[in-house]
């Protein structure tokens, strides 16, 4: 074995191993596409949507208020479970500056109206007709998902499970007490 062929053999081995490790790495980078999520602490993406009763609503209109943005659908059982508590929280704290926006995923108006009447929901319901707000803007995976947004439009908390009234209060009270910048 001359040193020359030894060198080329070693280079071959190195190239092959590096290629193999590179392929391996990219396989796992490829299959484990971490879904991007909205992190607490970043600004809540602004949006404009129509409500169930035909108004246009823009998130930035609520600067200075605490916003609870809840993604729901009437076919989702946990959503149905938490809805009365969200409504209760809304009635209790709306005078102190809490806004609740219930973004409905891709259902028809008549169904939503019936559901809201049965539940006695009084907060504005956003019509996310194509699901863009949930999927693209807010990267919602399970529903219900809720975001707590402070007076400056910053995401302060996130819940990916049905909430109870105490849980909502624990998140909302400190935000309401915080100065609205």
């Amino acid at each position, binding site marked *: *074995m001359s040193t020359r062929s*030894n060198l080329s*053999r*070693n280079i*071959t*081995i190195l190239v*092959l*191993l590096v290629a*193999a490790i590179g*392929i*391996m790495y*990219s*396989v*796992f980078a*490829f*299959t484990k596409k971490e879904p991007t999520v909205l992190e607490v602490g970043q600004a809540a993406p602004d949006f404009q949507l129509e409500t169930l009763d035909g108004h246009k609503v823009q998130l930035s209109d609520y600067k200075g208020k605490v916003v609870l943005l809840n993604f729901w*659908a*009437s*076919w989702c*059982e946990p959503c*149905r479970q938490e809805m009365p508590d969200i409504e209760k929280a809304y009635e209790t704290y709306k005078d102190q500056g809490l806004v609740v926006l219930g973004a409905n*995923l*891709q*259902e*028809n*108006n*008549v*169904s939503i*109206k*019936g559901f809201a*009447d*049965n539940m006695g929901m009084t907060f504005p319901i956003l019509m996310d007709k194509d699901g863009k707000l949930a999927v693209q803007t807010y990267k919602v995976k399970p529903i219900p998902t809720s975001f707590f947004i402070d007076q400056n439009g910053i995401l302060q908390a996130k819940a990916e499970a049905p909430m109870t009234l105490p849980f909502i209060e624990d998140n909302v009270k400190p935000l309401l007490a915080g100065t609205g910048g």
Partner: protein
Amino acid sequence: MNNGKKRSVFDGIWDFFASVKVGVTIIVLLAVGSVLGTIYPQTNAIPSPNPEFYYYDTYGKLGDFYYRIGLADTFNSWWYLTLVLMLFISLIIVSIDRGIPLYKSLKRQPVARKVIGIKGDRLYTHVEGPEAQVKLDELAAKLKKRRYKVRREDGALMAEKGRLARFGAYVIHLGLIITILGVFSRLIPGWYYTDMIWLKEGETKAVGDLGFSVQNNGFTLEFYDKEQTRAKKFETDAVVFEDGKQTAAKHLAVNDYLTYKHTNIYQNSYDPQPMFRTGTIELLDTKNNNKPLGTFVLDFNDPKREYKVGDYTLTMTNYFPDIKIDPEKGVFTNSRDPYNPGIQFDITGPDQTEPARQWMLPLAGPFVKQMLGQDYRFDLQFKDVDLFHMTGLKIERDLGWWPIVFPGLIIALYGLVLAFYFQHRRVWARLEEGVLHIGATTNKNWLGITGELNKVLVPLGIEPVSQKRKEEPQQS
């Protein structure tokens, strides 16, 4: 390979991958892994989006273990990929380690071999006499006719046929290397995509991030029998949109697919459970011998809040597209798709002080009649109803298949044929001291070369060759 020098790590790695034993072991392990992967269904074939729970719930502890070691997605598990990559490295190193020396030694073959070597050949004959030089020339001519590559030197001949057959194994290696590269080409962004999309009629959905969307422009379903058990055909009018413009359209049927931007769109399946599209509903007055009061058309995917029928107004107070009635959980909808609509109307009219509130459940008519029907003021009947099925399209893009994987497989097949059905035959002749020595060798099928040579030798009056010393190892 070790000539007394210290062995380096590189020598160790090289010898490991150059070993046939290791190569065969890797192939066997790949086969065993693939077999084990068939015990339970793979993750892409389970009726649940949560494999981490499904395997434990369905197959218990063993199922959980199965999922954890990656067998539930065999081809993408770390150990399977490692084996494939090891095979890839092994194929390359083996080919360098043995293929290149073989190539060199065959290239350096002498025409004038030593007589002692020729005499040692498994097939050997000789002829003496003044004719020897003539016979050598005739032998060369006859072997040329038999498509041997004949090389001559003074008093010597070397004829060779089918040298490529010796490289059959390396051609197989090359084919497999290309195939493996083609499979991994799927990692290049945009090269590989596969998905199922479900479309209602008129619905448009974006296809992953490929930059276009597909619309279902109409779905037809026909059955062989009245009971609708065996589908005769199901076809979709598919339209492709890109940047808001229609860019392609095709009537898709099973095995008749649309190719758009190297992406195949196949008619794959349909949802056997129909949905309600529209219905023409007649309002009947039960207090008046079911006198028809008029009709209205209801769009189940986009219902209106109010419908006018003659002097009567129907207000939809509740609409559950897929109604479930549960003693514990009450009334709710199971999905947003109108599989099983449940509608609650408030009906007001000239002869009513109070709105009549009543349900309409098309798939549970008798239930409504029995449970609630006694005192209903009105009756709601379908005059005409339009059901539809969702179509299931399979989207597939694999840019590596035709240019890389397919040729790789063809090359591997060609290599198999070379290795198994072709032989490398060599004939040497040397004239020495008036004796013409003829020796021949092959890498396989000794019977074949014996017959062929004798067809050449016998007409020349040379004693036919016969095999001898079978136990003797053949040389390359």
